[in-house]
């Protein structure tokens, strides 16, 4: 996918003025479900006058349209409306890794029929160049915004209404920098939610600025650094770009599920018994859709993963279909707090933007209080994130020191699992 299309570019495809008008009327999320897009496909289901919703799919490379409605126009109003919503870029059409089955089937069918429709390398290079120039413009714009913010001071920024952060984030989305947009939005919320908002915001500004400078020097970056930069900017990898494979017995040590109004995301943390490497699997689904079946916490998956380019801990995909799954016996790699933070420092040296840092901690005592803490046998303590279910943590520990796995985010621990006897229990 190159840059997101503009509305005029979509409407130029309409076979007549009536279709364009009808498409504009249909281009609202009300009548649509299962909306999603990948690099090359946009799809969704539209509830029309028929009982079953029409299945609408657009292949962006040509573009080619398919809709199950009876209209003989091509593209029909449903296909146009779908593209209009996608072009609006307001997030109603989720960016996903995998196409919905009905869309993927059609695309696969088309590829075999129009074979050898090998992606045209020249066209692909052109699309990448388009995206890069859009991103570069967005990065320049973001730098000016950061300069303004620093000139006026963080204290002034704190008095800004929520719209100040939202507008900046929306512009980053338009410039195909959704990763930065998410962090700007989060910073706008944190500024009122955290007691240490000022040092936290200054640290965030530093990391964003680092991304700006890194983007300008991207031709000098190695593959891993480029991978981390792409993650922070929000430029996803295509599946065929990952190939760095490693086999191990992977212990499923933590699961976390997050849901907002349009996306369900699941992270599965794996620890490789032989390599000692920690990787994370990411799965997404549009809100209201089912995720791929989760891995069972505490089990051990014997198999091969393909790792995305980047610094450790790396994102990965489980490859192959059949994996041998056996029960595990808890957290194989738990350490005290200092050792775990030492590991975190080594990871941060490789990836300065690393935000979710997995920590496997042994012998942690739950200390209720304000804020509640987890302390290791030496007394080294981590602050629990607000929103942690302290009661459940206490109930599981019974006041005994327990091994805990969690994500350390912005200097606060979000516990994901606790080892009770030889079993991991999700929080």
């Amino acid at each position, binding site marked *: 996918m190159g840059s997101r299309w503009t509305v005029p570019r979509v409407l130029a495809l309409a076979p007549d003025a009536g279709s364009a008008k009808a498409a504009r009327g249909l281009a609202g999320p009300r009548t649509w479900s299962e909306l999603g897009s990948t690099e090359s496909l946009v799809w969704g289901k539209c509830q029309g006058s028929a009982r079953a919703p029409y299945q609408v799919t657009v292949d962006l490379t040509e573009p080619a349209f398919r809709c199950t409605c009876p209209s003989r126009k091509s593209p029909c109003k449903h296909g146009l409306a779908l593209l209009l919503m996608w072009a609006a870029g307001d997030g109603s059409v989720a960016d996903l890794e995998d196409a919905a089955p009905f869309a993927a089937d059609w695309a696969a069918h088309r590829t075999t029929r129009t074979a050898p429709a090998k992606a045209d390398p020249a066209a692909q290079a052109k699309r990448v160049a388009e995206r890069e120039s859009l991103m570069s413009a967005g990065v320049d714009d973001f730098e000016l915004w950061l300069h303004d913010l*620093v*000139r006026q*001071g*963080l204290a002034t920024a704190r008095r800004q209404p929520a719209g100040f952060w939202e507008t900046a984030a929306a512009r980053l989305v338009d410039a195909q920098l959704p990763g930065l947009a998410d962090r700007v939005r989060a910073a706008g919320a944190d500024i009122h939610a955290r007691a240490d908002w000022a040092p936290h915001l*200054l640290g965030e500004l530093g990391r964003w600025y680092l991304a700006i400078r890194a983007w300008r020097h991207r031709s000098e970056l190695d593959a891993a650094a480029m991978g981390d930069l792409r993650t922070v900017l929000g430029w996803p990898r295509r599946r065929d770009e990952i190939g760095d494979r490693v086999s191990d017995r992977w212990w499923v040590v933590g699961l976390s599920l997050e849901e907002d109004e349009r996306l369900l995301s699941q992270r599965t943390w794996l620890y490789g018994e032989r390599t000692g490497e920690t990787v994370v699997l990411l799965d997404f689904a549009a809100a209201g859709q089912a995720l791929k079946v989760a891995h069972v916490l505490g089990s051990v998956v014997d198999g091969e993963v393909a790792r995305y380019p980047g610094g450790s801990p790396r994102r990965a995909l489980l490859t192959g279909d059949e994996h041998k799954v056996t029960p595990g016996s808890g957290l194989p790699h738990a350490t005290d707090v200092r050792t775990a933070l030492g590991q975190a420092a080594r990871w941060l040296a490789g990836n300065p933007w690393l935000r979710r840092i997995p920590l496997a901690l042994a012998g942690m005592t739950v*200390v209720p209080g304000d804020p509640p803490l987890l302390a290791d046998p030496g007394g080294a303590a981590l602050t629990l994130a607000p929103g942690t279910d302290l009661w459940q943590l206490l*109930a599981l520990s019974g006041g005994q020191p327990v091994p805990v796995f969690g994500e350390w985010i912005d200097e606060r621990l979000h516990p994901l699992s606790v080892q009770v006897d030889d079993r991991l229990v999700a929080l």
Partner: protein
Amino acid sequence: MTAWDDLLGTALVGTGRRPFDLGDSAIEGAARVTADSPEAGVLAAAALAAGYRRAGWTPRIWRGTPAPPAAPDERPECTPAAAQILELLLTRSIRLEVGTELLTLDWLRAARRAGRRPPHRLLPELLRFGTTAAATRALVKDVAGPRGAWLAGHNPSWSWAVTVPPGEVAGRFATGTRAERLALLADLRSAEPDRARELVEETWTTEPAATRAGFLDTLRTGLSGRDEPLLERALDDRAATVRAAAAALLDHLPASSRAGRMAERAQRLRRDDGSFDLPGEPDESARRDGVTDHREPGLGRGASRLIQILAATPLSTCDSGVAASIETADRDVVLGWTKAALHQRDPAWLAALARHQPTPELIAALTPEAATEILAGQGKLDARFGGLLAAAPGPWPAGFSLDIVGRLRAGKAEAVLRLAARALAEHLHPRALAVVEDWLLALGTGHQATSRTLRGIAHALTIRATILQEFT
């Protein structure tokens, strides 16, 4: 001032007001970075410093003493399927027409019977359940076990579930608030009733009237003849509320000397034919024993006094045959006996009275067998019957369960069905599931309310059967 503090100070007020030069800053590594404006300088310095700060972050040291851990729980954990049912019930993820509370209670009772515990992770939800449904607390506390009691100690809103160690009871009773002392007594009363009463007696004379009355109410649990001296003493209390509370408790002790005095009063009023004279103005001793000027609805002063006297008279002193005397007795006399039977929990009298004129109160006090036998003999499936059925205790025998569903269906008694839906869901024998489902299938359109109720009952029966199966 560290280089970071200096940087933060500049960033807070802005480079518009305070200059910043990256080269002059003491930020590590600044010499290797260029910045062509003060803003770029602050941002570059922040980028460098943020990396050092995060990577070099040191944990704070906690120097407190950990609280003592929970006592071990020897009970084995319930099966994963049972745990899943409990979780669905507690989080209300299953929706039931008849409510999830009674099934939760079924689960807890089954777990208690089987001597198994819920998984620790469900304890917070379980304690939340007990906090809202106060009547279930004793059961919840039992099932939650030592880990639950320990956990409750960390959250003031769960204080009802805390078990106070025996050595600390006296101290806490002396220093607690009124509510805490009442909770303490209620707790102690179910384990060591005499010890609880002794605590009450120790400070009795110095407590305010409202506290004395509250303390007496806690004696209702585990009430026995050993409590009589205190209650007898309370009959002479300065406060009317305390005297009334004492009299109400003595109603439940047919072997007490006050019951004997009441029996003498009843004997004096009794005519040879078994009927009773109406008593006149109560004398001082009758007033002391709790005979008041309270009027029963629709009855005169004398009749109301007679009811009070009979209600406090031991039924064992009524020498004529139970059933025969009820048939011929006046309305006020029957009312007095009914109250006495309910207080004294006399099964023969309760059954006889219920046979004579069933009320929800009487039916509820019977054994399931006696209650269902009386209900089976009732001819009309009207709203009154619905009220009785709703009050009937369970579990209902299989024969009655099948029969009652059949009768309701044949009689098209959908109003009764809805009135008694909770009781049906709670008490029907598992074998009645098939007839409930049959009825549901045979139901035509236009019976949405009924089909919803039936579906709720069928659903509840299925879950209950699963619960029982998971605990065998």
